[in-house]
């Protein structure tokens, strides 16, 4: 019987298909944040022995795909990774953003999985965040998301000063955007579909009103 190594059966040649994700390889990415991108998410907080959930405004991170030829990412010297210096400079100086590019940060959030494109059969790597667990099920990829873990990490980025806390005006603009949906939907609340939309919007408005604005730890 094949022995499991790191939870994976060693290659069995043509006897059994290997455990590769049936998905096209993608490129690694770095996450970045710009000052106007925030969303509301639940975070588990510990109060003594009691664990509860609290809504927070959390930084909404974007991927910077490290694909040479896009967004000023260039190919690095052979054997080295892509050169993203120009992209980083642009994010930091032009967008006043934060690129999470330090090695310990990348190790925290980036994961790679072996994969094979079903069309071209090219093998490669499929990159996800650490809070996504992709699995091959019947020829497709199903991904489980650890939202609570991801949100906890996002909050820690603000608390440890990596990302500056949101400006209250930015949060107010985001709340206003959502609140602005209510009058339009309310005009047609007699239609069941719109009434359901209105209820969902109201719930999100309430969540956004109740969410705490994170602060850097003293």
């Amino acid at each position, binding site marked *: 019987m094949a022995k499991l190594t790191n939870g994976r059966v060693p290659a069995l040649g043509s006897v059994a298909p290997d455990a590769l994700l049936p998905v096209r390889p*993608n*490129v690694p*990415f770095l996450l*970045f944040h*710009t000052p*106007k*991108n925030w*969303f509301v998410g639940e975070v588990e907080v510990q109060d003594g022995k009691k664990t509860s959930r609290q809504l927070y405004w959390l930084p*909404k*991170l*974007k*991927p*910077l*795909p490290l*694909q*040479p*030829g*896009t*967004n*000023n*990412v*260039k*190919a690095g010297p052979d054997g080295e990774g892509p050169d993203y210096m*120009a992209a980083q400079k*642009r994010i930091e100086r*032009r*967008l006043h*953003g934060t690129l999470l590019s330090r090695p310990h940060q990348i190790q925290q959030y980036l994961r790679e999985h072996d994969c094979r494109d079903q*069309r071209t*059969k090219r093998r490669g790597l499929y990159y*996800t*965040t650490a*809070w*996504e667990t992709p699995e091959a099920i019947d020829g497709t990829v199903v*991904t489980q*998301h650890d*939202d609570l873990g*991801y949100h906890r990490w996002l909050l820690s980025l603000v608390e440890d000063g990596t990302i500056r806390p949101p400006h209250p005006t930015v949060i107010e603009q985001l709340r206003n*955007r959502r609140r602005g*949906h209510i009058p*339009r*939907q309310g005009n*047609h609340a007699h*239609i*069941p*579909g*719109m009434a*359901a*939309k209105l209820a969902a*919007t109201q719930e*999100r408005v309430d969540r956004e009103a109740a969410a705490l604005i994170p602060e850097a730890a003293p």
Partner: protein
Amino acid sequence: MASVSSPITHAQLDGGAIQARYAFILGAIRRRLREMVSLRTLGAVRYAGNVGGTGSDTIRETFYDGIGWGASMASTAETGTTSLSSVTVDIEDIAVGRYSLGFSESYQSRILGRPGEINVELLAQLIPNSWEATWMDLVATTLAAAAADFGTSGVDMSFDDYLDAIFYYRTLDGFMFSVDGRPNLFAMLHGQQLVDLATSVKAEPNYQFPEPTDAQLAGRGPGYQMSWLGAELYQSNRVTSSGGNRHGGFFGGGSIGWINAGLDQLQVENPQTAIIVPELGLVTEFRGVPADAKLQMYSNTWIGMAIQDDSQVRGMVTDA
């Protein structure tokens, strides 16, 4: 369905699910349908130049502001001194990267092949399509890095998300929904986002009438969908996914730029058989490997794409 890996060999074509012992009708050799969408010829993504022969892999563009329509005159007292104005100068860069694709075929496969069967010459004819697919991948990848988004992570795209985007462009200083009568706002959304949008629109009273509802719900497949509320709406399933969300987006015409590297200075090994598409910067070469009884085909191109005006590019990030 069977997979034929490079080098394409007779053993593979003869065995597995293909089994050449069956008699095939020539017309039955068909390609699987795949998305064939490119925004390249629309001018939505602006061609910004050619770095071939420049000594650099990067084009730098200069943008001016605070001049002409960007600088109105200040009210000045009868004998007041006029304040001098500054001109804003801004730069944006686009760098090229190398993209390549190769196939190989065994001599035996060629010798024993049926008429119309795949071979490296046929594959080479299809390479410009692969180039367009690559170009569209670059649009999707570039759009994923938009500085700010509409939509809600983990929540299906809604009509309100669409309106948020349209209203953003309405209030964006100087943004033109059309220039010289040509549309100037483009949206590239994943099929799933369009399905969610159509589902949301179904409940909208203003879209209860048959024609607009039909236009929203009708399945057209990837490509141009419709002009809707000021945006030219395209579907492409090349839109990337990350963190459980689809990263579609909106962009103003020319706010994303692309460049290539011309091949004028390239010396290929065998100019008689090489295929060069100058306008794309695409070169395809063939070579035989007698020791292994194989034919090989390699294509290379150098292209790049980048956001040129952040304010005109907005992501639409919604549940996958």
